[in-house]
């Protein structure tokens, strides 16, 4: 007995010593770590190759094994082998993946592998930071509101893991709410910094993801756009500043394809070079336009391509300058200087009535009449026949369109495959096709008949969202049409689709097209699913409007916007003003946090039971019995029993409760019942006195 008294609890001390030597995390913390790893990697899983996902899965499965049986640590050489083979695999595939994705693979690989070697607190910290870094890189690829919201929740989870490490006795739900609260408390300062802190230019060139190109391509074969029509992805959004054009006017030009090689339509080479040179010399083509214009803002989604969208003759507003990121091409299309890797917003003025190229150079004329002779002999014959019938170009065009209208042409997303992309076969035999088929055949006919013509691809239409007063243009609205050049008029848009399926250009997809689209698309949220359910569509529109505001104000918040906004609020922005604002925000947040915490903690307050006990004591003083300071509570009970027998039983019970509350570790529930009992006893004492 004496020994234990003297030596204290030896096992306790040993436990402490062991703790410093061997790092071991709580079981719940270990599971939290595993789940946070799964979540973090899931956020970038789309960018990872299948073999990498499989490797990560193996690592995580091993981690599960480690949690269940702590002894099953991987042997050193197996671990080394795994590391080496993983790194080699990444190095080999890095050329194909590109620098950015290779780095991401490496990051995820080390993140999964590191969990197998959790030997010290440092390792644990590294894992947490690596996880957060992976989340940050996930934002390079996707920034939509939904994605960011999910990511925010996962950030909370990551910090919950860290918090659980330091308070392992708490329940997970309690920790999650606590972390959520802390992040919410941090949000005001973060937003303030976001608005105020100056945006800097990039310090160095960073690698961009080189895969995942979406949207229109500059090489179109019949059937291509039908593939695009399966996609429900957003291409861009448009807000018109004042009046909105008719639906049938919404021909968003993206690419002009004026070369036909027998199978597909391409952009002509030298034009490409010229545009490139233009960009190099910063001597931009500025179209000479006049007349009424339509002003609107376009927010393009990242497509990892260069082309942008505009109605007819679109002029970027303000007028393109040397440092502008957008180039005007001589074919009246807009193009970004760099690959569009994140949302790009620009203001455009469109001149719907202005003529395009009143005069045409001989070279241009020749290019727009060119076709590989003999590639579609029946069409050539047809063109000659029509030419003989109609001398006027307009009549000829009407005749071809009339043929489309009168004969059994069918507009579909599921066209039959053509042999070697034969336009003859389409025009004379299958008579079933999508916009590219019609536009290709029509352009070919025009060229064969001696009318300069070219293929234009872009998007047709757009879904108006009344919630946010903007148009969303989705990939399935990709379209192709023809422009023919007429003397005195310039380039004129002719859309054969309008004749075959008028509904398509008047109001959008017909029910038949929607059904086809849904059957092609593997997405659950396909067109028919939400277009046929009213409330689902309303929810979708609302979410989409929120995402639009998010895109416009957060993703697209540029340094220009920042300067405008701040100078509207605080006058001209000077460095000292920025500094002052940040400092002010900082101190306000500190004070608020201080007050928030202070409220929760009654630092100097007496415990409720002590207050109750003191009340009882003061009642006894009224009876002439004072508790000496040095006397213990239980001794005083004896004294009271002797001198005031009428309150003795109540006071004894009250003191018992007080002793339990003061000197025992009670749960909150127990405390409550004890305090309640004290209240009752105190009342009884009052009555008796």
């Amino acid at each position: 007995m004496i020994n234990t008294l003297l030596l204290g609890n030896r096992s306790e001390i040993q436990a402490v010593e062991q703790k410093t030597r061997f790092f071991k995390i709580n079981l719940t913390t270990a599971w939290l770590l595993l789940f946070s790893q799964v979540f973090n990697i899931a956020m970038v899983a789309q960018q990872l190759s299948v073999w990498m996902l499989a490797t990560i899965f193996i690592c995580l499965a091993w981690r599960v094994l480690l949690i269940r049986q702590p002894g099953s640590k991987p042997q050193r050489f197996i671990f080394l082998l795994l590391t080496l083979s993983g790194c080699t695999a990444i190095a080999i595939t890095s050329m194909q993946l590109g620098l950015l994705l290779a780095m991401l693979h490496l990051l995820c690989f080390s993140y999964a592998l590191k969990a197998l070697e959790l030997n010290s607190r440092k390792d644990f910290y590294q894992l947490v930071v690596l996880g957060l870094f992976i989340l940050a890189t996930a934002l390079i690829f996707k920034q939509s509101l939904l994605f960011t919201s999910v990511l925010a929740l996962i950030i909370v989870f990551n910090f919950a893991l860290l918090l659980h490490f330091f308070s392992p006795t708490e329940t997970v739900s309690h920790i999650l709410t606590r972390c959520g609260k802390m992040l919410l408390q941090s949000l005001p300062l973060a937003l303030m910094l976001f608005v105020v802190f100056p945006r800097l230019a990039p310090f160095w060139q960073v690698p961009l993801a080189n895969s995942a190109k979406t949207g229109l391509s500059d090489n179109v074969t019949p059937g291509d756009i039908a593939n695009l029509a399966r996609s429900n992805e957003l291409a861009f959004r448009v807000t018109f500043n004042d009046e909105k054009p008719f639906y049938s006017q919404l021909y968003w030009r993206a690419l002009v394809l004026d070369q036909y090689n027998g199978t597909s339509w391409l952009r002509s080479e030298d034009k490409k070079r010229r545009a490139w040179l233009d960009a190099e010399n910063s001597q931009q083509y500025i179209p000479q336009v006049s007349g009424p214009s339509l002003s609107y803002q376009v927010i393009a989604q990242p497509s990892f391509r260069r082309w942008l969208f505009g109605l007819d003759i679109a002029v970027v507003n303000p007028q393109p300058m040397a440092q502008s990121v957008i180039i005007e091409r001589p074919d009246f299309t807009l193009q970004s200087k760099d690959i569009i890797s994140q949302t790009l917003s620009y203001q455009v003025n469109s001149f719907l009535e202005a003529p395009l190229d009143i005069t045409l150079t001989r070279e241009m004329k020749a290019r727009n009449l060119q076709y590989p002779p003999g590639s579609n002999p029946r069409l050539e014959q047809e063109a000659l026949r029509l030419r003989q019938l109609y001398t006027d170009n307009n009549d000829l065009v009407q005749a071809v369109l009339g043929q489309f209208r009168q004969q059994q042409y069918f507009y579909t997303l599921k066209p039959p495959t053509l042999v070697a992309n034969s336009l003859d076969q389409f025009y004379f035999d299958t008579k079933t096709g999508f916009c590219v088929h019609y536009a290709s055949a029509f352009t070919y006919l025009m060229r064969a008949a001696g009318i300069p013509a070219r293929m234009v691809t872009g998007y047709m239409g757009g879904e108006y969202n009344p919630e946010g007063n903007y148009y969303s243009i989705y990939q399935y609205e990709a379209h192709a049409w023809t422009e023919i050049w007429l003397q005195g008029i310039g380039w004129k848009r002719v859309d054969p689709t309008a004749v075959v399926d008028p509904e398509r250009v008047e109001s959008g997809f017909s029910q038949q097209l929607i059904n086809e689209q849904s059957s092609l698309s593997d997405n659950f949220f396909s067109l028919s699913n939400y277009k046929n359910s009213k409330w689902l569509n309303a929810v979708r529109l609302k979410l989409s409007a929120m995402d639009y505001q998010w895109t416009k104000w957060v993703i697209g918040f540029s340094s220009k916007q920042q300067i405008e906004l701040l100078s509207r609020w605080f006058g001209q922005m000077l460095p000292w003003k920025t500094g002052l604002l940040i400092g002010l925000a900082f101190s306000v947040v500190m004070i608020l946090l201080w007050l928030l915490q202070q409220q929760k903690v009654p630092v100097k307050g007496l415990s409720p039971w002590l207050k109750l006990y003191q009340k009882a004591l003061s009642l006894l003083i009224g009876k002439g019995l004072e508790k000496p300071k040095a006397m213990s509570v239980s001794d005083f009970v004896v004294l009271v029993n002797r001198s005031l027998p009428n309150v003795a039983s109540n006071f004894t019970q009250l003191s018992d409760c007080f002793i339990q509350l003061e000197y025992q570790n009670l749960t909150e529930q127990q405390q409550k019942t004890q305090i309640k009992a004290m209240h009752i006893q105190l009342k009884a004492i009052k009555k008796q006195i």
Partner: protein
Amino acid sequence: MSQVRTNLMGSENNAEYKSASLPAQVKRQITQLFQGRFNAWLTRRIPAAAQHQLTSRNIFIMPTRFGFAYLFFVLLLFLLATNYQNNIIMLFSYLMASLFITAMMTSFFNLSGLIIKAQDKSRGHVDQPVNFVVTTTSPQRRFDLNFSFDLQNSVQLPLCSPGNNTVQVPYLGKTRGRFCPGRLKVSSEYCFGLFITWTRLDFQCQAIVYPKIKAINGALPAMSADFDSNENATSSNNGNDDFYELKNYVLGEPLSRIAWKQLAKGQGRFTKHYQQSQGNLCWLNLQDMPANDIESKLQLLCYIILEYSKTAQQFGLNLGTVKIPPNDGLQHMHECLTALADFSVRS
């Protein structure tokens, strides 16, 4: 008390000084100077008290190494965001930076308001921890509290629930004597390990470190029956007394009373009991201990005192300069052991 300590420490320091090179000496002196200044400041800032309430006056807070690494990570995120001109990553990095501030506040409030009391005196043996009972009182929950004395092992209290909580904070004495373990450090890395909040409280603790226990195999050495007869006779001191009875030998009885004849005949181990000596008091003498040096003697004495106390025998202690009259009980044992701890040749 402090004198004892400086005496003991001083000799060690001198020996080290002689062997140290000049720059090392200078370095040591500088650190000592700073430490002295810091301690003086600390004494003014957080004076000794029996109970401390933690406030902004006595709480220190600093980012940990992980905290600095985290800041570096935030900077990295900012660079990533700037290079990719990605507003969402930018927002992410600002959020992380802002969370750093929130974490700082949370860390601070994890300690703030806590009331700490500590036992001011505690006892133990050399190379065995002397535990001080530390009581924390708080109306709300606190997490990840670590308690330690300077250069000593720490004890963790993962959760400090509302009300009182106690922990035993160890102090490991390397030599016997009375020591002041110094200030009690209470630290926490809650909530994310980004910050360490700590305080160093002075409770004027005193650790009494008893000598090591050196066990004796077999019977305990003789002890004199009477203090006065101690000087002249040891073997024949009981000659005049009347033999009264033989009793079964009990561990701890002096060798001189063993009935050797009976033992030699193989009848068993008995001790002779005399009528007169029955009420006699036993004395433990330092000189009588079968060891060469003083420390070993003290260690032996320590063992014997503990053994006697176990069987509740009365004994007195004679260290030459200090004499404690025979008695029994826990208090007496501690008194004797304290005398052993305090014993010094010079005094």
